[in-house]
């Protein structure tokens, strides 16, 4: 079973615009990670945020985590055509060693 759900399922934007996708999960977590998957390079780790952190930045990526709402968001600023991919959140449940991936958001950036 998949504990994370990304929203929206699909997103289409123009190059240069910002893209925001959300992840909701069900139980307490140790940390939350975002991954990108495209046909050319497989799954690639983007960013990790710990359960005691609220916001984290990496280049054009900004991740927030709200443990009270059990949700996270990924913001990609100034999007590029190369950002076209599926984005997944992955959670590690507290007290376990198991990664659980969400259902993914398919992002399409139009040039």
């Amino acid at each position, binding site marked *: 079973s998949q504990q994370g759900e990304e929203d929206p399922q699909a997103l289409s934007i123009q190059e240069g615009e910002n893209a925001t996708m959300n992840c909701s999960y069900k139980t307490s977590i*140790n940390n939350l990670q975002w991954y990108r998957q495209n046909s050319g390079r497989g799954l*690639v780790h983007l960013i990790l945020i710990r359960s005691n952190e609220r916001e984290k930045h990496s280049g054009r990526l900004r991740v927030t985590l709200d443990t009270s709402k059990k949700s996270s968001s990924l913001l990609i600023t100034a999007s590029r055509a190369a950002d076209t991919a599926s984005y*997944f959140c992955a959670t*590690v449940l507290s007290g*376990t060693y*198991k990664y*659980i*991936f969400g259902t*993914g958001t398919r992002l399409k950036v139009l040039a």
Partner: protein
Amino acid sequence: EAEVAQSPRYKITEKSQAVAFWCDPISGHATLYWYRQILGQGPELLVQFQDESVVDDSQLPKDRFSAERLKGVDSTLKIQPAELGDSAMYLCASSLELAGSLNEQFFGPGTRLTVL
């Protein structure tokens, strides 16, 4: 840059046949994961190894799937017999330590399995 290697990249088989996938993790990575990804969904963990020991195989269909990592390095995932519903991408990943630690997973390119 070190990468996770998987083979074959593509496999077509008939139902009831046996198939095997191989994975070589990044050198020094203690933890190895096998995932199954159905088209349009996120990866689902099948089995997780710490060195040569199984940490989690709760989602592995043990009547037909088996996995081993005998020397704590490379790993093999086997399906016997294959069923139509096994058609999916099988992904291998590795990480320095267990998932509870603050480390990322590195994924291989995957094996696309088609069962006819």
